[in-house]
């Protein structure tokens, strides 16, 4: 059945069934449909068979070092804030093989890895997440050296974004200018409406591919009231951010405070466990690992996630450049919030709050940054 094809940038209304058939069309078109689902007490990303796999009626509560799911009073499909995994594992997987070398008669034979060939659709992508993907795009494909693996995973991804309605206690995208409403980088962006009518979604069309898909799904024009309700969702989310980051002169704040006593204090609490960096959707550090088989016939090079919190990460001849936790914590925060701006033109932080929630001891980067500001030592 053909429905009117909406214009790019237009908004239409979709019911719950419409969303279900939208996902079905993506699957029929050969997409691997990945989105939020409940597993082991959290909302993680996995392959979706249909909307029944979404976290129906599930919300979350987040605080520094604490995450709990909760049952909602409604049947919301997207009534939660970001979980432990970002979409970075889709494009920058925890470990990949870069190549293999085999001993051949005429010398070593190199087998490169084939490029990734898949059609991926991401469902429920939040604004902070889209901004994080844009940050990683700059890192992996935006410069002179294009990461071929990242590029092949990233190509042709279909994105269904969701504008946040209920930020968590650790969210602060509003103060980073990265949310809660998706401003681009999507094919379709949904705002879920749970009251004032049936369970429905205002859908903003972001691309021709998005418009084409909608033309195959039953939808209706969005009314003035629906538009107003969608704006109210964003306004409420903006007003309910759990945290705030003051970004004024943030680069000079960090550069001027490298010897601030706060670094030693946070180092007393920090475990150096790496969780903050591994959950961060923009952190991109990796290490290369070379191994051989027992026979010595094959050598393999892998790329694995690494973190500025490991000693090996800054190991150069004779030792680690940042042997103390103080130095390692300072490196993470200074790069993320200050020197990233010099390097890539934006902050390395999109305010998703994951590093706060998933720090086992609840270290809060907004609090650490504020401490530098509140208590500038006399030189």
């Amino acid at each position, binding site marked *: 059945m053909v429905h009117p094809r909406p214009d790019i940038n237009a908004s239409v209304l979709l019911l719950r069934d419409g969303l279900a058939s939208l996902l079905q069309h993506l699957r029929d078109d050969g997409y691997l449909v990945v989105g939020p689902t409940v597993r082991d007490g959290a909302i993680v990303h996995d392959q979706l068979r249909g909307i029944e796999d979404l976290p129906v009626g599930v919300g979350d509560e987040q605080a520094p070092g604490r995450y709990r799911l909760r049952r909602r009073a409604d049947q919301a499909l997207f009534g939660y804030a970001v979980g432990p995994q970002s979409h970075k594992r889709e494009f920058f997987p925890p470990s990949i093989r870069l190549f293999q070398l085999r001993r051949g008669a005429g010398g070593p034979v190199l087998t490169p890895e084939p490029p990734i060939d898949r059609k991926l659709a991401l469902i429920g992508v939040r604004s902070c997440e889209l901004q994080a993907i844009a940050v990683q795009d700059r890192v992996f494909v935006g410069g002179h050296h294009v990461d071929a693996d990242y590029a092949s995973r990233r190509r042709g991804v279909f994105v269904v974004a969701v504008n946040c309605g209920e930020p968590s206690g650790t969210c602060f995208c509003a103060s980073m200018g990265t949310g809660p409403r998706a401003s681009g980088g999507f094919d379709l962006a949904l705002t879920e409406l749970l009251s004032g009518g049936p369970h429905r979604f205002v859908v903003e069309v972001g691309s021709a591919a998005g418009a084409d898909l909608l033309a195959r799904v039953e939808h209706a024009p969005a009314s003035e009231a629906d538009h107003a309700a969608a704006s109210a969702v964003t306004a409420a989310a903006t007003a309910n951010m759990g945290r705030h980051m003051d970004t004024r002169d943030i680069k000079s704040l960090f550069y001027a405070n490298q010897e601030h006593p706060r670094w030693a204090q946070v180092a007393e609490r920090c475990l150096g466990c790496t*969780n903050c960096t591994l959950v961060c959707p923009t952190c991109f550090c990796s290490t290369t690992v070379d191994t051989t088989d*027992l026979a010595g016939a094959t050598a393999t090079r892998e790329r694995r996630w690494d973190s500025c919190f490991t000693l090996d990460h800054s190991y150069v001849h004779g030792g680690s450049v940042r042997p103390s936790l103080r130095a390692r914590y300072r490196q993470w925060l200074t790069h993320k919030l200050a020197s990233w701006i010099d390097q890539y033109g934006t902050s390395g932080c999109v305010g998703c709050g994951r590093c706060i929630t998933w720090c086992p001891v609840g270290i809060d980067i907004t609090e650490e940054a504020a401490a530098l500001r509140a208590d500038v030592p006399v030189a």
Partner: protein
Amino acid sequence: MPRKRRPKLAVWKFASCDGCQLTLLDCEDELLAIADALQIAYFREATSADVGGPYEVSLVEGSITTADDAERIRRVRAVSRSLVTIGACATAGGIQALRNFRDHAEMLRVVYARPDYIDSLTTSTAIAEHVPVDFELRGCPIDKRQLLEVLSAYLHGRRPAIASHSTCVECKMRGTVCVMVAHGTPCMGPVTHAGCGALCPSYIRGCYGCYGPAEAPNTAALARGFVQMGVSEGGVRRYFHTFNANAGPFRQEGLSHGD
């Protein structure tokens, strides 16, 4: 075709449960490749037979708990080009090192009907406290993939690709939901050496610390976290004093919490 010279491998046992050396036999799929690459010249469980040698690589399991063993490990070292210790007993003293914190004579009385038959040292200590060790492979028991990696590395003269960061790295790479944060379950992962692939959290259990202290662990900060989660002082001590009780940072942290 003449058979290539295969380096000689020896496997030695000291005070231990045999679990780590059995990991070698557990390498079913790889056993042929191992036997092809290495001559397994000495591998008998529970023996004090002649040392022989020399050996290119010696794998040593178990801790030093008797005066005889303290002597025997020197002989093993003397005939081994590379000496690799395997498992928590050999690298930290094992669970039997719990006696290091108690009255040895009293423990003998409690455990044995005839304590006078027992001739043991008052402590259980790691091999590296007695002789120089080339590489320590951690775990209780060790991980099979890591053992194969260490053997391959020694065979081909390279550094083993064994990371010494926290277990959390493996946990996050695996995509496991953190049990500390999402369930309020105390977990030793943040201070524990990686190697197992973060097995326990993947079954929604806290890490037990089988692989001993990670590089530069902040044990005090984790212990404070455990107390905030409601763990008693004695409970904190027991988290740190298990298979790796005598490994420096775990020993110290455990001792700073009451029984």
